């Protein structure tokens, strides 16, 4: 099962993961990663802009690459867009597989690619207004691991 979504409001990672795991009772295991808006550093809000004609198709492409590379029973990739507050979830990934290494590696692979190859633009609100976030060098190093 592939479950790939762009989400405009807040969502419950635990609820999503529970449903995904229940749908994959045949798998040996489920790996997941949930990224959340980090509080502190003066960040009051985070905004993710996307470009609808590319973004969801791009996420699907990344997850399909993961499916082609790792033996998976299913994968989930939910990504918030819009404005979110510190502590709120931004992205939830999950992969179910017979062998745990495939599940863990698939989550790792999809997260690296979402970071540097998915069509999201991020800005942070601080006390002095909004600031665009530039791509981090580390993100490009992370994706290079998979080549």
């Amino acid at each position, binding site marked *: 099962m592939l479950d790939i979504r762009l989400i405009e409001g807040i969502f419950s990672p635990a609820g999503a993961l529970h449903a995904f795991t229940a749908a994959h009772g045949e798998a040996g295991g489920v790996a997941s990663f949930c990224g959340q808006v980090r509080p502190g550093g003066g960040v009051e809000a985070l905004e993710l802009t996307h*470009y609808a004609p590319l973004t969801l198709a791009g996420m699907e492409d990344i997850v399909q690459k993961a499916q082609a590379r790792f033996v998976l029973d299913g994968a989930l990739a939910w990504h918030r867009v819009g404005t979110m507050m510190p502590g709120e979830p931004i992205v939830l990934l999950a992969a179910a597989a017979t062998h745990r290494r495939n599940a863990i590696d698939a989550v790792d692979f999809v997260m690296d690619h979402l970071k540097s190859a998915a069509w999201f633009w991020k800005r942070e609100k601080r006390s002095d207004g909004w600031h665009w*976030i530039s791509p981090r060098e580390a993100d490009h190093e992370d994706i290079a691991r998979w080549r």
Partner: protein
Amino acid sequence: MIKVVYLGKLADIAREAQSDFASTSDGLGWAGLLDLLESHGSTELADAVRADTVKLAVNGQLLADRALLDARDGDEIALLPPVSGG
């Protein structure tokens, strides 16, 4: 009419999320787009779009090379700066 969509930081520089430009009988190419952005927008906008890291999509299809741009009436051009996602 050709719609131009500004993503990320480019929307700040353009001071709008998108512009509608009148189309001509000729297609709109890369040089023509930069001219339009400079005349209807600003030199700053044209320069920001000219940066090598900005990619183009036409009607949701990424262009492999910006020089291939040939937009017609009804097309939507997206100007895509480097992503900072996840």
